């Protein structure tokens, strides 16, 4: 297990190197200096701010030196200052991170809790009405523009029925509320975004549970479990699902970039002041230090998400966790 972990950590190094190269390359994509573009697109970027940006990126020096310098600062989590309000980028991120984490973890927990029964049910009765419904749902989930679904929900539940607030995270009187009322207020505001994320994400995930469950149910050890006279429920959940979960852990790790992408879209549509919205605002304002910081952090987060999934997988799968084989007979 420990050697496995070390091996996986070492395996991350080339990917991390590529991430920094790509991030660094993006800023150099622009014709001319990126600081020129900043000036052209963002009138708020004063001459002084531009000069500071130039200095930050050391644009007058040779590219390899620039890269190493930038890398060194990134490793120290020094992403410079936003030139919208001159605050350190890392501070702005820290401020926004909890909201995004809250929304995504609630959505993730809901998706996990729902995808298993939905997928298992479809797997046990292939071609049943339920199975067909989930197939349709999957195609819809893959094809529907999530921001449009969000707009429809806003128009219907917010504007038409007045059930739910359509934007922001706090009501106008939030500051005057008691602690419980504040929490309820936030919950009220995140129902719609979470609902949309779950609806779209669940489609693919439950289909994935279905297919890995169908695959597992054809294994020899399921036949053994049935031959032992176990109840169908025990066969499915004790013997089948445990194995199917292994591949679900992996797919969860891989779906992290989609979650982040979803955050950008949902937070923008619903005007929620999280990381996604921060990124969108930074893009609109061409606030490069924030953009670069978020791109790099997002990729690194994804990478560590995958690593976490691998570790969870290794922990769940005794074939990796218990790496010793006793071969005597």
């Amino acid at each position, binding site marked *: 297990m420990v050697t496995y972990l070390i091996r996986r950590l070492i395996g991350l190094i080339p990917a991390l190197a590529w991430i920094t190269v790509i991030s660094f390359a993006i800023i150099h994509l622009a014709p001319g200096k990126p600081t020129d573009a900043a000036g052209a697109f963002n009138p708020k970027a004063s001459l002084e701010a531009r000069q500071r940006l130039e200095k930050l990126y050391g644009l007058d020096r040779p590219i390899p030196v620039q890269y190493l310098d930038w890398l060194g600062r990134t490793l120290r989590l020094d992403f410079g200052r936003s030139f919208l309000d001159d605050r350190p980028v890392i501070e702005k991120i820290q401020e926004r991170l909890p909201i995004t984490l809250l929304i995504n973890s609630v959505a993730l927990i809901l998706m996990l809790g729902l995808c298993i029964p939905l997928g298992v049910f479809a797997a046990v009765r292939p071609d049943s009405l339920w199975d067909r419904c989930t197939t349709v749902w999957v195609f819809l989930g893959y094809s529907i523009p999530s921001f449009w679904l969000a707009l429809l929900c806003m128009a219907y539940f917010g504007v038409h029925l007045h059930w739910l607030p359509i934007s922001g995270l706090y009501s106008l009187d939030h500051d005057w509320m008691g602690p419980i009322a504040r929490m309820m207020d936030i919950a009220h505001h995140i129902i719609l975004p979470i609902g949309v994320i779950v609806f779209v994400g669940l489609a693919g995930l439950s289909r994935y549970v279905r297919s890995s469950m169908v695959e597992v149910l054809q*294994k020899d050890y399921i036949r053994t479990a049935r*031959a*032992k*006279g176990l109840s169908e429920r025990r066969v499915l959940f004790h013997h089948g699902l445990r194995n199917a979960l292994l591949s679900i852990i992996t797919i969860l790790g891989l779906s992290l970039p989609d979650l982040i992408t979803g955050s950008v879209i949902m937070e923008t549509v619903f005007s929620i002041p999280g990381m996604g919205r921060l990124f969108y605002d930074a893009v609109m304002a061409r606030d490069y230090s924030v953009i670069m910081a978020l791109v790099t952090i997002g990729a690194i987060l994804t990478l560590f998400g995958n690593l976490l999934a691998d570790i969870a997988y290794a922990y769940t799968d*005794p074939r990796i966790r218990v790496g010793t*084989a*006793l071969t005597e*007979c």
Partner: protein
Amino acid sequence: MSLLRVDDLSVCYQTGDQKVLAVDQVSFSIEPGEIVAIIGESGSGKSSLALAITRLLPRSSAQICARRILFEDTDLLEASEASLRNIRGGRISYVFQDPSSSLNPVLTIGEQLRETILTHTRCRKSEADPPSLEWLRKVGIPQEHLRLSAYPHEFSGGMQQRVMIAMAMASRPALLIADEPTSALDVTVQVQILRLLREFQQRFGLAILLICHDLLIVRRLAQRVMVLYQGRVVETGAVNHVFEQPAHPYTRRLLEARAYLSGPLK
């Protein structure tokens, strides 16, 4: 009275528009304590037959029909799902071909063994360990008390098959259906496993339905043999009789092929 009596059992697979008859009106019986072998090439319907007896074939794709499948006093064709579950793994146990894929990789040996005991004996959860250990000892697994918490992948193929046999025996079944129990194993291990099966047969009066394609094994172990060819029983009788005076051309071909391999090369 026979332990198991199967009359006109047919198994039919439905895949898409095609229907394939895997087992075609097979009838046979097994007496208590007897070893009956089924031989035949792969695809002759041996495994389908073995699974059909306790109706373990997937209901969505396989159709079973028979006049009756009488085991002890129950007609398995008409038995409820609950009484079938009591018989499966309780009175009729299975040992399958490939132990490495037949054991659940994410559950410990102990969990899988205890599960059988808990399902088929009146035994509390806390009391399941001693019989589990006892059976591991009986199938010849050394240091058995260390093995309950081990996972299947930590065992060699032969040890895995011993665990499968322990699981099958733990409920003291009357009939063990062994579907090619040794063909995934090394030759030296094969002998040990077969000896173990023989030992249990003699010690516990266990009847064994041995499915096999190795004529040597059949000759050493079984009392009676059925030859299955394209889903039909083409020949049946006492082992010595069938092997000395094969009546059906397919049986003769089987025996000739074996003789060619074991005799001097021409």
